[in-house]
């Protein structure tokens, strides 16, 4: 297996002087293609900061980050946007669908920025919605979908571009346990069948159990990194 994410001696410091906060303190982490990693830890442990850097939404103060062998810490804002556009899908706790917009249009959005033609866009978006089990709901807007369905739309939006990496930030945080398990089963299936690398932040051990590797953060450091036998 080749390495997809390689973090080396990563530091992230907010503010300066006396108000300085060290969010990440010398983090090194390697994640291979095809892994399903659960990132755990209390709030303020630095896991969200790490996720933002892995997702190329933020840059570290020091250290290096290579994505699929490519140094990304030195990339400018537009280059990082292009990397996200091509390689990374995001799933958020709060779903973050566009309001007053149909499921299909939401899923099409990343393809719009990729310059995919309309008909092709439609087809890919329908396929992605089918993969998350939402056939027949293409025309529904956010308000007409349940929480679980909204998160499925968000997952379809994240995978419609066939990204190398799917970043999920507490994807089940707003869902009841039954819906949560559905979503986790879906993510595990995408990881297994489509080979999408998944890095997921979660508080809940039940959900982390779906992953095959657990990384625990505490006070800006990695406390534990355990692989589970599948």
């Amino acid at each position, binding site marked *: 297996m080749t390495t997809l994410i390689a973090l080396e001696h990563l530091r992230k410091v907010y503010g300066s002087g006396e108000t300085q906060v060290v969010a990440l303190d010398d983090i090194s982490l390697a994640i291979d293609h095809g892994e399903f990693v659960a990132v755990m830890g209390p709030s303020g442990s630095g896991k969200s900061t790490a996720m933002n850097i892995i997702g190329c939404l933020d840059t570290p103060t020091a250290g290096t980050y290579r994505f699929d062998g490519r140094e990304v810490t030195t990339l400018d804002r*537009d280059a990082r*946007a292009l990397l996200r556009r091509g390689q990374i899908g995001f799933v958020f706790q709060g779903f973050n669908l566009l309001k007053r917009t149909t499921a299909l249009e939401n899923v099409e959005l990343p393809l*719009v920025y990729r310059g995919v033609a309309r008909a092709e866009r439609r087809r890919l978006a329908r396929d992605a919605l089918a993969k998350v089990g939402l056939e027949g709901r293409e025309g529904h807007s956010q308000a007409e979908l349940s929480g679980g369905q909204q998160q499925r739309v968000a997952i379809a939006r994240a995978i419609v571009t066939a990204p190398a990496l799917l970043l999920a930030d507490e994807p089940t945080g707003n869902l009841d346990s039954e819906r949560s398990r559905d979503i986790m089963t879906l993510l595990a299936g995408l990881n297994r069948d489509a080979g999408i690398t998944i890095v997921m932040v979660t508080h809940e051990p039940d959900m982390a159990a779906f992953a095959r590797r657990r990384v625990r953060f505490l006070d800006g450091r990695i406390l534990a990194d355990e692989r589970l036998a599948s």
Partner: protein
Amino acid sequence: MIGAAAVLRMALVELGRNPMRSGLTTLGIVIGIAAVIALVTLGQGASASITNTISGLGRNLVIVSPGNARQGGPPQAAAPFKLGDLRAIEREVSGIAAMAGVGILAVNAVLGNASYATSAFGSELSYLAVREWPLSAGRVFDEGEMRSGKAVCIIGQTLVRELFGAQDPLGVAIRVGGTSCQVIGVLSPKGQSIVGQDQDNVVLLPLTTFQRRLAGNTDISTIMVSAASPDLTTKVQEDIRSLLHERRRVPPGKQDDFQVNDLSEIATIVGGVTVILTALLGAIAAISLLVGGIGIMNIMLVSVTERTREIGIRLAIGALEREVLAQFLAEAVLLSLIGGLIGVALGLGLSYAGTRVLALPFIVDPLVVAGAALFSGLVGVGFGFFPARRAARMDPIEALRHE
């Protein structure tokens, strides 16, 4: 990179999601553009109407009259012109297309029991050429009538109305200042002069007839000269002035006892006033456009704040800064352009109604219409840029956290 068509479609879809707000936002631009179009069109109509009135007096007209109003004090009696002066100008001054000496007398025109106060004009045939005044019926004087001073006349529309009503005046004899003369022609309507005089209240007689039967002298009150081209009016004016200065033997150091006026001077002054007025009204209207632009900026800023999360999502999934900028700029430009187009239509409608009410010509200047539409687009760019840049520069992490 995402295409212009996609950006426009995205902007249109966004505006369509909130039609009420979009409509209200464009209102400022609608009113601003409508005001500019209406005021400028009305101003141009008024200007054209005034120019028409002035040129209605005659083309490149130079008017020579005895006396000098510029001296101040009570008007002094100055010797009238004679036919000799006329002939001398004809002979000595070049660049003249047509000229006519006119004798003028206030008289009553009488037919049966009807009597109407009017002006009797005695002149040569060239008078109608200088005034560019065609007949609407009948014929002009012939050579014989001119020479022998026959009692014939041509009357204006007002006299036709007041004396004859619906009756045909041709061939009928009327009394003009005590002299009976036969109506042989009717002048076409000319309307009011620039000083509000009814130009159609006139009876025209051959100069000889006028001098022998009405005035009882050989005086000529006014000489009207039509220069061959607008550039020549000044030269013609100067030449006439120096010629008459000599002929009338004005003593050295004394002012001329006659004046030579150029109507284009009046036209220039009046035209200048209208241009200033139009510009002033246009400027006031432009201020309302500015206010409309600020309205758009306001709403776009609110919209950007309200859609912070959406912007975060777009940025996270890989929208470039300039793509987000383009989207929000496109929304602002579309808002103001649509407002501009509605404003143009409304403005044209209003000015059409206005010109009808004020009896002015309805003149649409395509340059003003195109300029207004273009300007509304520029307002969108100008006032949409700041909010759009704010959207584009957002930090996606912060934006996604926004409640």
